[in-house]
């Protein structure tokens, strides 16, 4: 056998097979009936839709197998609308397939490019009309038109401004500062160490200067989880231990992986779990990553108490909270 392709003759188009309805008037009549039934089903659906809206009480529930207790009005509205739209389409398609003309039409493909004479004709017409419009003589019109069109062309460029402004150092800073009180979220009440029992947690936000409103951007960066453990459970460096207060330790709630709120605290294992990608942090070892895709521990907030005995931050976060970004130093 050689590798050459064997030549074969063009088989042409397959012979056109006529449908039963084309030759048999009985079949045509049956097809007509089928189409009519489909349209009628659509009509029933619409009547059901309108009727259920008017006559069925909105608080009536019925029991259906599999679905359980279902609101009757919602069910009829849905089924009615589905029927009205679906069967009108099905009827139209069935009509076209069985009864409409089945003559096969061949549409030849042509080149997209226009004929050469049409093209030269077009250029000539444009030139002729431009000359008639006296563009060359009316310089004032020409220039002002140029100005307005040029400015219109500029306007989309200002949309690009919405790509900015650059965040500057906003990604690296939070509202936590030395002496910022920890407030409950929600509630905005300051917290004393005695308010927390061993094994308890509290979601906290920083006290903002009076007159400042808390925005979602604030909350997205500032959210902190407060956990109280027995002090002997900690396995921390002396520096990190000095950041805790009587067994109370505070971590940023924003996951260092993708920024989800890490607040699934397992009281027995003392693990913090991120619900998005299952990164697990060990609270006793300064939120060390023990499982999952997070690359860094959660930033720890140094806390202490102020003169009135309320919990405050010792200092701002020492590193940017949340996921990595391009300009992040570590």
């Amino acid at each position, binding site marked *: 056998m050689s590798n050459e392709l064997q030549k074969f003759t063009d088989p042409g188009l397959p012979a056109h097979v006529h449908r039963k309805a084309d030759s048999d008037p009985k079949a045509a009549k049956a097809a007509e009936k089928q189409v009519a039934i489909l349209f009628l089903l659509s009509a029933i659906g619409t009547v059901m839709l309108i009727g259920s809206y008017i006559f069925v009480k909105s608080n009536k529930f019925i029991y259906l197998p599999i679905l*359980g207790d279902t609101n009757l009005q919602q069910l009829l509205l849905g089924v009615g609308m589905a029927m009205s739209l679906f069967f009108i389409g099905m009827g139209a398609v069935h009509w076209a397939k069985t009864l409409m003309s089945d003559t096969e039409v061949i549409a030849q493909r042509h080149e997209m490019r226009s004929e050469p004479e049409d093209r030269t004709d077009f250029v000539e017409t444009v030139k002729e009309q431009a000359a008639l419009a006296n563009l060359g003589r009316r310089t004032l019109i020409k220039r002002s038109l140029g100005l307005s069109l040029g400015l219109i062309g500029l306007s989309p460029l200002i949309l690009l401004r919405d790509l900015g402004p650059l965040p500057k150092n906003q990604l690296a800073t939070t509202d936590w500062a030395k002496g910022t009180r920890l407030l409950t979220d929600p509630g905005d009440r300051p917290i004393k160490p005695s308010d927390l029992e061993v094994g308890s947690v509290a979601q906290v936000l920083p006290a903002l200067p009076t007159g400042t409103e808390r925005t979602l951007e604030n909350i997205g960066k500032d959210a902190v989880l407060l956990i109280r453990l027995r002090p002997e459970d900690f396995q921390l460096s002396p520096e990190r231990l000095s950041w805790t207060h009587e067994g109370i330790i505070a971590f940023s709630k924003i996951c260092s992986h993708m920024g989800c709120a890490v607040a699934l605290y397992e*009281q027995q294992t003392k693990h913090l779990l991120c619900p998005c990608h299952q990164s697990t942090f060990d609270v006793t070892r300064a939120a060390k990553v023990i499982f999952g895709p997070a690359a860094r521990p959660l930033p720890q907030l140094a806390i202490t108490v102020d003169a009135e005995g309320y919990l405050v931050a010792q200092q701002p976060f020492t590193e940017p909270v949340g996921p990595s970004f391009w300009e992040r130093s570590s």
Partner: protein
Amino acid sequence: MKRLSRYRRHKFAGPAVLLAALFTIGTTFSIATALPSQQRMEVSAQTTMVEEGKQIFARGCSSCHGLNAEGGAIAPSLIGVGAASVDFQVGTGRMPMADMSQQAMRKKPVYNEQETAALAAYVASLAPGPASVTNASLTWERDGNVAQGGELFRTNCAMCHNFAAQGGALSNGKYAPTLMDAQPKQIYEAMITGPQSMPKFSNNTITPAEKLSIIKWIKAAQNEPSLGGASLGRVGPVTEGLLVWTLGLGLLIGVAVWLAAKAR
């Protein structure tokens, strides 16, 4: 008063007032003298309950938790956990644990209400701890605020228990249970005692009034009717997506095949 003053010179007015005064004094006196004896009865009932609880504890709990609830290798000490913890764990059937799986799960309670109360009284007698509450004592219907409860739930509970209180997975096979069957007192007790993996939410960071709001929100979520019938677990895009990708897409493929089929 006018009607009363009309009768004040009636011939029976004097005797009637005397009778009423005597009746009032007598009743007050009897109530006042009865109180101490009632208290005595309560104290003795309390001691019998503790005794009864101790016996139940020795039979049903001590093999793991130790004869004096001091804890063992497989079970924690129960000294100081309080009546609330016992009421929650035993009342929801989590304790006694049937097997040593990852976590105790909700099942049909082994002990009835009276036995649970006795157990709670015994454990509470060991050391002070959070007291148990009753459904009737929690006035969540009157004092709770659903909107506030929703906000608190989303910040404090939703990450584990799901935004619709359906529960969710934790690590190593542990899970946060669904709250669809939880009674108000169980929700309250869970928040103050922190059962199993759940941390405590102390009354100073989430006030008792706020806890009532959370309960009211959970009750609202429990009673939320599903208009469309099957709720698909109310866990959002996972089950809904599965249905659309199988049933919905299957239907579309069927329609496409029918559209392209030639009529005969």
